[in-house]
């Protein structure tokens, strides 16, 4: 666990899809952090990490997003986000995008050491697993690609889930198989995406769990979007909402 000073600035990065479609996840994140003793900043000029442009090959456009982000978050000690793919974008792709400009590159590299996905921040940095969460029933967990393979985060969310009072954790079959979101992929290659999310939901049903928890808003839109249409009695919840006990996650 990294020891931080007692007065560091912890700042929130709320992904664009959370801002627009799932603001409750942002609220849950704030409530959760406050419960564990962190009262985060929120820079109101934040917008988007630039991933959609990056993934579509629009590097110049993605650079604009990157520079805006770096300018905005540059003074914070720690940045926390309820999205692994956004954190991966900042940590991994910003230095690559800005490698031709030594000043921006340095700023991007420096920033990459200070940005964390939510569960990673709580468990690894704050050293906390007991966050006052509770849920009566069986819970399972979907390993989002950018969080698992991009950030190497897998243990932390599961620890937090297991420590919730009343929870029985059950494994999800094929937990690390991609759910088929992939941003634009879900629309452009819809016929493949829907087969992938269908299989992910089949795994969820097979697990017998009462609830599916995950850490990635994109996966949530995808999986819960499919559940809402095809299995409305089953729910998926973002880990922030699950831990904060605020219910609605998608």
């Amino acid at each position: 666990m990294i020891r931080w000073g007692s007065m560091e600035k912890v700042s929130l990065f709320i992904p664009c899809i959370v801002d627009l479609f799932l603001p409750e996840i942002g609220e849950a994140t704030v409530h959760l952090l406050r419960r564990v003793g962190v009262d985060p900043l929120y820079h109101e000029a934040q917008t988007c990490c630039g991933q959609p442009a990056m993934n579509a090959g629009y590097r110049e456009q993605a650079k604009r997003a990157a520079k805006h982000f770096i300018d905005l978050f540059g003074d914070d000690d720690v940045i926390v986000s309820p999205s692994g793919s956004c954190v991966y974008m900042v940590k991994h792709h910003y230095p690559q995008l800005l490698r031709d400009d030594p000043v921006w590159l340095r700023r991007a590299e420096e920033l990459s050491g200070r940005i964390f996905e939510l569960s990673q921040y709580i468990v690894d940095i704050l050293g906390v697993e007991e966050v006052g969460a509770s849920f009566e029933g069986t819970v399972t967990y979907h390993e989002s690609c950018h969080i698992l393979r991009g950030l190497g985060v897998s243990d932390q969310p599961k620890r937090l889930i297991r420590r919730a009072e009343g929870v029985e954790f059950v494994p999800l079959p094929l937990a690390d198989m991609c759910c088929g979101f992939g941003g634009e992929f879900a629309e452009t290659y819809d016929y493949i995406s829907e087969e992938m999310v269908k299989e992910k939901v089949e795994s969820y049903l097979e697990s017998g769990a009462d609830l599916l928890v995950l850490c990635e808003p994109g996966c949530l839109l995808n999986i819960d979007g499919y559940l809402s249409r095809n299995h409305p009695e089953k729910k998926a919840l973002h880990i922030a909402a699950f831990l904060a006990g605020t219910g609605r996650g998608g």
Partner: protein
Amino acid sequence: MEIRTTLFNEIAGKEIRNTYARAFLKAMPAAIAARREAVMSSFPDPDAAQACGQAIRAEVVARLPELLEQFEQNAVARGAKVLWARDAHEANGIVLAIARERKAPYVTKGKSMVTEEMGLNDVLVEEGIEPFETDLGEFIAQQLKRPPFHIVGPAINIPVEEVCDLFMEKAGMEEPTTDPVELGYAARLFLRNKFHHVALGVTGVNMAVAETGTIVNLENEGNIRFNKSSPRTQVSIMSIEKVVPTMADAMHLTRLLSRNCTGQAISAYVSMDSGPKGGGEIDGPEELFIIIVDNGRSEIYADPTARQALRCIRCGGCLNLCPVYAKIGGYPYGWAYSGPMGQVLTPLLLGLDRAQDLYRACTLCGSCREVCPAGIDHPSLFLYYRAKDVEGDRRLRGKRRPWKEFGFFDLWSRAVAHSTLWNLGVRLVRPFVNRYSRGGVITTMGKYFEGWFRTRNLPAIAEKTFHERWKRLRRDTVSGDPDGRRGEP
């Protein structure tokens, strides 16, 4: 082989509805991946073993010209004839010249993806020389005129009934059967006859060892060994990146290749040739030709980002873990190379313009990158290709994108950089999107995002976005410190 890379959606759309292939794809790749996991544990440190493979292949790419020269020198010293071909046309010409001179009425071929890339079989057929694929899966695919379904099992998706009909028609099988073992035996008899009298055998090369001038082939069936033992002339064809520095490196890669390919510790046969047969030997080739083929790779080499594509050892490990491949199988990739490794290589060999879907039909999940024993970062290459396509890069043959899309991202990026524009944009778009919403849920947006809405709902854009909720949220702060400091709980 017909190139159908521009028909990705059409073919994938068809294959994804093929329940037979789907059942197959659900079981087989996962089974191989599970076996791989088990057999990698024969290494006391599997991660180090994988990292070693990656280091070997990185060294190959870094030292490529020097290793090729060393390989050639040592191979020639053992009596091999080493010939170079700039492109498929030249390579085919060399094979043709050899086959003509030796008056071979037919040739037998071991599995070689570079020869599929070259279209060698079509060239031989035109010349009146019949090429017999002798790897069972390649034989079936060839006779059915199908592209390969999987890098390791080119015809594993073909139902037994179809194989039976084929063998009765084309392989001299007399009694119908749907038993794979009996079918295999029928193919054995048919092809054995070809091996017996063949004058020229063609093989690929898994590894060309620079240290000793040795070519190494891995197989399970024995057909490659026949091609190296029965005919008087052996032609082995390799693309430039197949070279490896030392025999020790070749042994390590043999372990990794076998484990990733089929979940075996080692393939049933590994054969190593250093020159043609020795003087007293009663079998084996009197002449060994090794053809080194470029076909666009020296161009790839010149690109510091793309050159990692040359590390690939064709193990197929990436195919076995790809969630997209698991839905569509090998046909949609449209050419000799399928799955993530095909998505990496084909756009470089054919041009970004002809492979538009190959580097876009990917969620960037990273499973391929994680398993790759050669250390290729497939997702980052796909992002690179997408960027080069947008930029219309001339060397890579980027096509540029529709102006509407460009306009969208450009406008969008300016909104991202200026939050007042962003917030304004949200307020403008929200009523338009939300007019489709019922009870906070959108089930359709007419002709917009039809693909998503066919099977999925979407939440409405929140009446108050997080931005709009912040003021209230901020006031509710427990610690009373609006500057967001982390104090003692």
